[in-house]
Structure formats: C-alpha cells, structure tokens
C-alpha cells in the first residue's frame, strides 16, 4: 500500500516538474526583446566623452560598454532616415569626424522625427560596438534606441 502511494506521488511530482519546465522553455522561446524605454541605463555619458574613451582604448571601453544600456547626451549632428523610414540619430561634435550613431527601435521610431539638427538630445540605446575608420570617421554604434524623456 505504501509503495503505491510513493509511486503516485513520484509520478505527480514528475508531471508537475515537466509542466513547469515545459512552460519555462515555451515562455523563454517566445520571449520578446525588452523595450529599451523600460530599461535602466547601465551608464550615462556624453557622446564626446564616450568617443574619447573609445579612441583611447577600444578594448577596455568594449569590456565596459558592449551590450550595455547607455544613456547618451549630445548635439544632433545629423538625422538619417533610411528607405524603410527608420531613423538613425547621429550625435557628436560637428568639428569631429567621429560620432555616436543610434538606430531607433522600430516601435519608438517616430520619436526621432521631431529632432532638429544642432539641438541637444538624450538618447538611450544598447551599445553594439565601435567601428574605427580613419577615412569615414570612427563611430560608436547603439541600436534599439529610444529618446529619453526625462
């Protein structure tokens, strides 16, 4: 009799564990990207200071910033709209070839529409890395960007 009880309980527990595991796998598989607007910045810095850091030592700056949420402030150098209507905000010093380029998150894309060249902006995005280029100017790239309203 006791044995039967143990077997029933074991089966029940296994089933529950399986269901929980299955649910976890299912939700993990269907997990959406987090909205950058809801993410707290890991670092807050000006576009020029970030670029300076990268120019000095790309490797150590990458260890610090790669994949992290950055809140960047700076002057809008350029606002680029691609053929699909997606905006890229280019922040930085107009006298310098280097810039911080932030590609807007598609769900927040329209936020960028009102930006004016030469005005100040605070933009949050996820750092994807640095592209050093002497001819075209070096860029720090961020994607899934949103305007910071605060």
């Amino acid at each position, binding site marked *: 009799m006791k044995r039967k009880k143990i077997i029933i309980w074991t089966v029940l527990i296994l089933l529950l564990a399986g269901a929980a595991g299955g649910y976890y796998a299912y939700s*993990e*598989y*269907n*997990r*959406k*990207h*987090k909205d950058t607007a809801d993410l707290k910045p890991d670092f807050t810095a000006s576009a020029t200071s970030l670029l300076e850091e990268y120019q000095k030592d790309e490797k150590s700056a*990458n260890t610090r910033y*790669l*994949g992290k949420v950055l809140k960047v402030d700076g002057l809008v150098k350029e606002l*680029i709209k*691609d*053929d699909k209507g*997606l905006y*890229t905000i280019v922040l930085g010093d107009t006298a310098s070839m280097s810039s911080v*380029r932030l*590609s807007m998150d598609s769900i927040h894309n329209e936020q960028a529409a009102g930006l004016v060249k030469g005005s100040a902006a605070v933009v949050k995005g*996820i*750092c*994807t*890395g*640095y*592209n050093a*280029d002497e*001819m*075209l100017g070096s*860029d720090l*790239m961020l*994607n899934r960007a949103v305007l910071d309203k605060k």
Partner: protein
Amino acid sequence: MKNYFVLAAAAMLFSFSATAQKYFTKTGKISFDATTSSSPEKIEGVNKTSTCVLDTKSGAIQFAVLMKGFLFERALMEEHFNENYVESNKFPKAEFKGAISNNDAVNYSKDGTYAVTVKGKLTMHGVTKDVETPGKLVVQGGKIQATATFNALLADYSVSIPGLVADKVAKTAKIGVDCSLELLK
C-alpha cells in the same frame, strides 16, 4: 618655408583624395540566414548598420560589421547568436577586405546594372578565410546599389553548433549584402 611645404603637401593630398572616387555607406544591410529545411522557423538576423567603402578606381571594396548589431526577431535567438555562436563579446567585429575582379567591366559614369565578381578575405569569429562571390552593382543617378549573396560554412570560422540543435541550424549560413553607396565627399 616649412609652412609652404605643409600647405603644398596638404594640397596634394587633397587633390589626390578628390580624384580617387570613393563611395560609401554606414547603413548597409547584411543578413545572416542559417535556416535549414528541418528548422522549426526562420533563423535569420539582419544588421542595418554595416559600413562599406568602394573605391571605383581600383575596385577595392571593404565591409565592417558589428556582430552585436544583428537583430533577430526572438530575443533568445539573438542571445544565442551572440553568446554561443559568434561570441560577440570576444569578437565584436566582422570584416571583409577585397576587390572587384572585373572592375574594368563596370562603367561607373553610366547608369546600368553590372554583374561583378568580388574576391577577398572575410574575418569573422577571429578566423580569416578567402571568399569569392558573384554580385551585382546598379549604378543609378550617382548612387551605387551593391548586392551579393554568398555562403559561409560555419565550421570554417570555428563557429560550433551545440549537438542538441545541430540538425535545426544550417551548417552553412547564407550571407546577404545590400548596400546603397553614396559618393564620399
């Protein structure tokens, strides 16, 4: 006297760069597709922030792509791509340096579609390999649209696919290039 020399050198450099015709983009599209017939869904990422420079005089062409800039629809897929496959923290950038083998066949001053062959070296995941691929250049209104598709055997670049999903992910990734190049002033 010294100043004159610097000025002359600067002027020379300037005129040199003015004659060398370079086209570029910083918003080039590079796609990565590792979907196979047994994949349960599309395994596809797109990078819309690739840099490309084409020197129309020599036919030299190069690309730079930040691996973390590949966007996947599913968050989990993007994480796996970055963490397990291409290890983008360790190898943040992929690069291609090469040239158009039949550059003489392209008349950059005349609108039209030109079939080209691009040959060069692709560096990804810390490994450099020779790549040769057909491509297409469309010259129109002072802009050049450059497109190509080629296959990269993931094992060639030491990208290993865990056994559990080995039959769900293609061993060869299809890489698509689509760049709209503008004249570099």
